């Protein structure tokens, strides 16, 4: 990292008494380090370092980004509605973070492995996880319904930051498999992406994972979606410096990208993955974005943030800028946009139908998979509970029985 960044870091340390909400709203705009390839108005920008990582995107790729963004937002909207109607216990909306997730997700290769939080519905989409599989956890019928090895997409981790250590360990396994630096330029190697949020950067596990990834030079990309809020706590309660600058102290590069710019997120992640898969070690990416919705459907953000912030961020919407760019450049027309809208409605209807049809697990599934080799004691507990359930009359008695 250059000396100029050291200076920038020192200059950007906010005074302790600064109004947190005000200061966090201004940092990104004033930050010359923010990587952006597509303006909120939909104009392509050149970036000396990162443009080349998006230069080979075809028109079909760009339309594909738009499709991803729209469909993932529609999935999110439908899931929120399902929660409001009592079909899901809770939902963690990704509204506003679609570009960060689609851009980074589409930058990966099939052999790469992802460790998500519980909000990475867009990344899951890019890894081919059927959206219905995401709903099981939120409906309460399972705690992760997909096979991580089938998609190279680990289960959602709810404990904040814990998965960053798993990602780092997995990356150390990749090193031991000799799967780093494969191919003529190391370009066939395997890398890991660890997702987390701004709140997680205060966790010990995240900081430990930075230490480990650094000293072992592990092929892991730390992708932080700084959505400005850890439930009710603003970024200023987590850090006095921009988060990407934390990387410097751990000894690896950090970069801040416009998290609402799908092209920039794609390019920056692709670059970091290229470094990791070639043996160049970890990178911290701070995708600067905004959580447009509540933390979860159980949260009420009107208690702690002002509507004006939301309005300001609405002007930076991750989908509108892509749509404007595609339309202006003639890559897509209104017929295409209508086609995607229709596809999203179909997808949402299918998702709803599948959600409503999702069966509850059988009572005795309670005992399954505690161990690979189930213990005799647990087997006895299961048998006893089965006998207890069977002791009830088939009908009535509060719905007991199996």
């Amino acid at each position, binding site marked *: 990292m250059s000396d100029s960044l050291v200076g920038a870091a020192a200059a950007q340390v906010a005074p302790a008494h600064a109004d947190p909400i005000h200061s966090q709203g201004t940092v990104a705009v004033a930050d010359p380090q923010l990587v952006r390839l597509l303006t909120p108005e939909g104009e392509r920008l050149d970036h000396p370092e990162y443009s080349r990582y998006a230069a080979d995107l075809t028109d079909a790729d760009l339309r594909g980004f738009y499709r991803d963004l729209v469909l993932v937002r529609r999935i999110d909207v439908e899931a929120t509605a399902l929660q409001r109607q009592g079909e899901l216990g809770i939902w963690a909306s990704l509204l506003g973070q679609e570009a960060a997730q689609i851009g980074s997700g589409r930058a990966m290769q099939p052999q790469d492995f992802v*460790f998500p939080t519980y909000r990475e519905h867009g990344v899951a989409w890019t890894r081919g996880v059927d959206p219905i599989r995401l709903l099981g956890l939120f409906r309460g019928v*399972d*705690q*992760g*319904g997909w*096979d*991580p*090895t089938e998609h190279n997409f*680990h*289960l959602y*981790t709810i*404990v904040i930051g*814990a998965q*960053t*250590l*798993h*990602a*780092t*360990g*997995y*990356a*150390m*396994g*990749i*090193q*031991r*498999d000799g799967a780093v630096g494969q191919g003529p330029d190391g370009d066939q190697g395997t890398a890991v992406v660890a997702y987390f949020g701004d709140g997680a950067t205060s966790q*010990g*596990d995240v900081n*430990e*994972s930075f*230490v*480990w990834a650094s*000293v072992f030079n592990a092929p892991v990309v730390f992708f932080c979606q700084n959505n400005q809020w850890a439930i009710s706590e603003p970024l200023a309660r987590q850090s006095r410096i921009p988060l990407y600058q934390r990387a410097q102290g751990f000894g690896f590069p950090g970069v801040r990208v416009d998290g609402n710019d799908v092209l920039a997120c794609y390019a920056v992640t692709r670059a970091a993955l290229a470094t990791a898969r070639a043996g160049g070690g970890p990178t911290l990416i701070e995708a600067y974005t905004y959580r447009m919705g509540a933390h979860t459907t159980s949260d009420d953000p009107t208690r702690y943030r002002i509507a004006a912030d939301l309005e300001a961020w609405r002007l930076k919407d991750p989908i509108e800028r892509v749509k404007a760019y595609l339309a202006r450049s003639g890559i897509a027309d209104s017929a295409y946009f209508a086609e995607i809208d229709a596809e999203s409605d179909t997808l949402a209807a299918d998702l709803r139908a599948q959600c409503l049809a999702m069966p509850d697990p059988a009572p005795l599934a309670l005992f*399954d*998979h*505690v*161990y*690979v*080799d189930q*213990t*005799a*004691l*647990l087997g006895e507990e299961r048998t006893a509970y089965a006998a207890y359930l069977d002791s009830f009359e088939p009908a009535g008695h509060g719905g007991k029985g199996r």
Partner: protein
Amino acid sequence: MGQTTLAKAINMGLRTAMEDDPKVLVMGEDVGRLGGVFRVTDGLQKDFGEDRVIDTPLAESGIIGTAVGLALRGYRPVCEIQFDGFVFPGFDQIVSQVAKMHYRSLGKVRVPIVIRIPFGGGIGAVEHHSESPEALFAHTPGLKVVACSNALDGYAMIQQAIASDDPYIFLEPKRRYWEKAEIPDGFSVGAADPLHSARVLRPGRDVSVFAYGPMVRTAIQAAAVAEGEGRSVEVVDLRSISPLDLPVITGSVARTGRAVTLHEAPVSFGVGAELAARITEACFYSLEAPVLRVGGFDVPYPPARLEEEYLPDLDRVLDAIDRVASY
């Protein structure tokens, strides 16, 4: 192999496991060049290299958390926690991740991790170096918890735990590390007792004493003294704390009608409490006396000059045997 210390026996067990399976890794603080503060991993890095015997940063959550990731990639990490009291920075990863991963994934994911913990007191150490946290782990579904008490078991049990696809808390009685036992030449883990079997070390007729780890030797000594006083004491080495080998435990009490549980950990909510409940449920009509628990007091582990007061010793075990026998 002849007379071997417990520390050396575990070392040999680790070596055999690493030779048998290239996916077995050893990781922890000072386990490489130093060979571990108790030398349990002595020589392994030299022979298996730094990629398989990993000196880690000083971060226990990092040790466990990265072991999870390594396991997800197909490795079988054996983590060393340097001392019992230092496991707690890694407690969240153990309880929230290691223990629950298989269940959470509906069986699709396995995390065959062994977490070795030198545990217990009696070495005159400073705070955090003498604790017995086994009940915390035994209370956590998804983990299996075992404790070896002698060199032969140390050699076999570590290999068995590593070979299992379930995650293990592997407790090593640090004050017994230098005690020797015979490991027969040509002994192979295939000839060992099943990992989760308890063992009647010394048959008796009057009272059953249940111990594990460092207290097994104390129980044996107590039984020998009691014999001189005309009491026939059966000593059972639990070996497995979770799951408990209930057939052997209840079988013993069915014969003797009296039970004493023994561990260094505080008695309240401890392994002895679970044993007492299980014995009461299964042996109610065989019991001639209430189950008595001998253990540490319900205080934090004390300064070294007080640990002889804290730790159960021969006399406290004999006192309990007397009380349960005269009930």
